[in-house]
C-alpha cells in the first residue's frame, strides 16, 4: 500500500443527543471515523450502541448535535434540497428491514426508474430505461420481466434485498452504507446477498460501510473494523488485528458470543 488512498468521508467529534433534560440520551458520543476510497469498513456493536444513528448522520438523514463531517476533504454542506440531492448521488444506503424499506403503493418499476432519473436518465427513451433495469436485475439474478408491474410486498425478503442492490447498481454511488443488510434474511440468501454486494463493489469500486452486530460477518467482508459500545468506538483497526488479537473486553465478549460450530456448546454458562 504505497499509493496514498483518497479520503472520501470523515467525521470529527460527531455527537448526537436525543431528548432534553432528564430524558437526554447520548446516542453517539464524540466519534471520529475516516473512510478511504475502496475500503470495506465494519462498525460492530450490539443493539442500542448507536450504530444506526451514526449511519443516519453520515447519510445526512438526521443532523448531528455536535461535530463536523467532511466529504472528499470539504466540510459537508447539505442545507438545501439541491445540495442534498447532489450529496446522495455519492452516498447511498441499504436498510436493515427490506419489508419496510419500500413504499407499498409503488411498483418495482417506480423504484428502479427513480434511480435512473437520479442519475440524469429522466429523458432516456423507454427502451433504454428497460434495458438498464433488466441489466440491473440480472446482475442480482432477478428477472425484470417477472418483476415488472409487481409490488415489492409480493417478493420474498431476500428478493427485496437483492432489488435494493440492483438499485445501488443503477445509482453507482461512491459510498454505500449497508445497515445490517442481511440480518432479516435467512442464512442461505445471506451468503448470496453478501457475494452480490462484494461483486458489485468490485464492479463499480465503491467504499462500503457495514453496520452489523455480527462480528463474524465483519471479519468475513471487511478491511477495517470499528467496535462500538454505548455510542463510542472502543477499538478499531484492521480486521485481522481486531478480531484475532482483541484488546478491549467488549470485543472479547462479542467474540465469545459467536456460536462455534466445531466445538461443543458449553451450556453451563447459559
Amino acid at each position, binding site marked *: 500500500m504505497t499509493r496514498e488512498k483518497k479520503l472520501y468521508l470523515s467525521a470529527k467529534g460527531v455527537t448526537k443527543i436525543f431528548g432534553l433534560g432528564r430524558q437526554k440520551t447520548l446516542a453517539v458520543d464524540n466519534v471520529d471515523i475516516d473512510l478511504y476510497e475502496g475500503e470495506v469498513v465494519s462498525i460492530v456493536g450490539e443493539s442500542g450502541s448507536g450504530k444506526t444513528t451514526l449511519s443516519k448522520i453520515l447519510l445526512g438523514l438526521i443532523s448531528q448535535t455536535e461535530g463536523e463531517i467532511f466529504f472528499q476533504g470539504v466540510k459537508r454542506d447539505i442545507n438545501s434540497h439541491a445540495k*442534498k440531492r447532489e450529496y*446522495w448521488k455519492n452516498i447511498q444506503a441499504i*436498510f436493515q428491514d427490506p419489508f*419496510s*424499506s419500500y*413504499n*407499498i*403503493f409503488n411498483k418495482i418499476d417506480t423504484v428502479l426508474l*427513480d434511480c435512473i432519473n437520479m442519475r440524469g436518465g429522466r429523458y432516456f427513451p423507454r427502451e433504454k430505461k428497460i434495458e438498464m433495469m433488466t441489466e440491473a436485475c440480472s446482475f442480482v439474478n432477478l428477472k425484470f420481466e417477472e418483476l415488472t408491474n409487481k409490488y415489492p410486498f409480493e417478493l420474498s425478503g431476500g428478493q427485496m434485498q437483492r432489488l435494493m442492490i440492483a438499485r445501488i447498481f443503477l445509482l453507482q454511488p461512491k459510498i454505500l452504507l449497508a445497515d445490517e443488510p442481511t440480518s432479516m434474511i435467512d442464512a442461505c440468501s445471506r451468503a448470496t446477498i453478501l457475494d452480490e454486494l462484494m461483486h458489485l463493489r468490485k464492479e463499480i469500486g465503491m467504499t462500503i460501510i457495514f453496520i452489523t452486530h455480527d462480528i463474524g460477518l465483519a471479519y468475513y467482508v471487511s478491511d477495517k473494523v470499528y467496535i462500538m459500545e454505548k455510542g463510542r468506538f472502543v477499538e478499531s483497526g484492521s480486521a485481522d488485528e481486531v478480531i484475532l488479537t482483541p484488546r478491549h473486553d467488549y470485543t472479547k465478549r462479542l467474540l465469545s458470543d459467536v456460536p462455534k460450530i466445531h466445538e461443543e456448546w458449553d451450556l453451563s454458562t447459559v
Partner: protein
Amino acid sequence: MKHTLQQIFRSPNFVVGFSIFAVIILTVLIYPMLIPDPPLKIIAQGTFFEPGIYVNTYDTFSAPAYTLKLEGADSKRIASKLNDEDRLAMQKWLVGFGIPENEIDIQNTEALLDLWNTNFDPSKRFQGMTNADRNYYIRLNNSVQGLLSTAPAIIAATDETTGGLVETDRVQQSDYINVSQVSNVRILPLGTDNFGRDVLTELVAATRVSLMIGFVAGFVATLIGLVLGLVSGYVGGWVDDGIMFITNIFTVIPSFVLLILISFSIGQDKRGAFTIATVIGFTSWVWTARAVRSQVISLRNRDHVNLSKLSGHSIFYIIVNDILPYIASYVVMAFILQISSGILAEAGLSILGLGPRTTEVPTLGLMMNWAMIYQAHILGKWWAYFPVIITIALIAFSMNLMNTGMDQVFNPALRD
C-alpha cells in the same frame, strides 16, 4: 384502478354500506322528479295529519258506486264510531244496573251493544244518579241506536230559488267506490308536520341539503386538518410549533361555542346552508390536524421515506407519495366522521335557532327543531321526528360500513 374497485366491491361491509347509501342518494335524486312539489309548501290546514291515503270526499260522491255485501262491515263501522268515552259510560250504567264489572268487555263492541240493548231502560234510576246523568244516558242510547240504523245518508244541495234543500243523491251503507276512479287522492306516507307540509317531500329535500352541508363541512375540515397535519408533522421544527400553537388555541376553545358565536355574528339573513357548512368545517378541523400530525410523525422516520429521500425526491413529492397513501384510509375515516359530525353540528345549531335560515330549504336539523318546538314528541306525532332520526342514523351507519370496507383495500397489508 379496476383491480382496486373489484377489491372494494368484494368486501361485504362495503357492499351493504354502499347499498344503503345508494338507496338514500337515489331517493334524494329521483323523488323530486316524481313529486315536484316545493318541499316547504303548506298543503294541509291544521297540524300533524297522520300518515295515510287521503281521498277527496267530494270527488267520491261523483265517482261510480258499487255495492258490496261484506261480512262484518256494519260492526266495523260501529266499532270505529263508538269512542272510548261512550264505552266507559255504557260500562258505568251496566255496572250500576247490577252486572259484574269483570263480565263487561268494553273492547268487544258486539257483546257490549248486546248487553246494552237488552238491559238499558231509560226509566231506571240508581242511587246517586242525577237528572243530568239520566239525560246523558238517554242521549247516549239515542246515538247508539243511530249507529245501528241502516238508513242511507242523503246528499242535498241548496235550491237557489226557494232556499230549501233538494236531495241530489243517496249513499247506501253498502256503497263502495274504487279509489282509482276518484280524481283526487294524495298519499302522505309520513303525514304532515306542524305547519301542514308533507313530511316525506320535506324529508327528501332535507336529506339532500344536510348531506350537502355534511360533505362541504367534512371537506373543508378534512382539507384544513390534512394540510396542517401533513405540513406540521413532516416539516417539524418551528413550523410545527407555530401550527400546533394555533391548533392548541382552537382545541381549548370548545368548537361548538365558537360555532355558535360565528353563526350568531353572521346574522340570520346571511345564514344559508352553504355558509353554515363552511363555518362548521372551519371549527372542526382541529382533531383531524392533530391525528394526521401524529400519524405523519410516526411515518416520517420509516425506511421507505428515507429511501425516497435518498432517491432525491422533494418534500412535496414525499408528502404526496410516501406519506399520504399510508394515511389515506385514516383520512377517509376522518372525512366520514366529519360528515356525520357536520350533520349533527348543523342539527345542534338549528335547535338553538342558529341554523340556516328557515325560509328557503329544510334540513334534517331544522325538521328536528320544528318537531321539538311544536312538541311532536309529547303529542306522540312520531312521524314528524322519527323518520329524521332514522335517516341521520342510516347515513352515518352506511358511511362507516363503507369506510371499514375501503380500509381493507386502501391498506394493501390488510388484503386477504
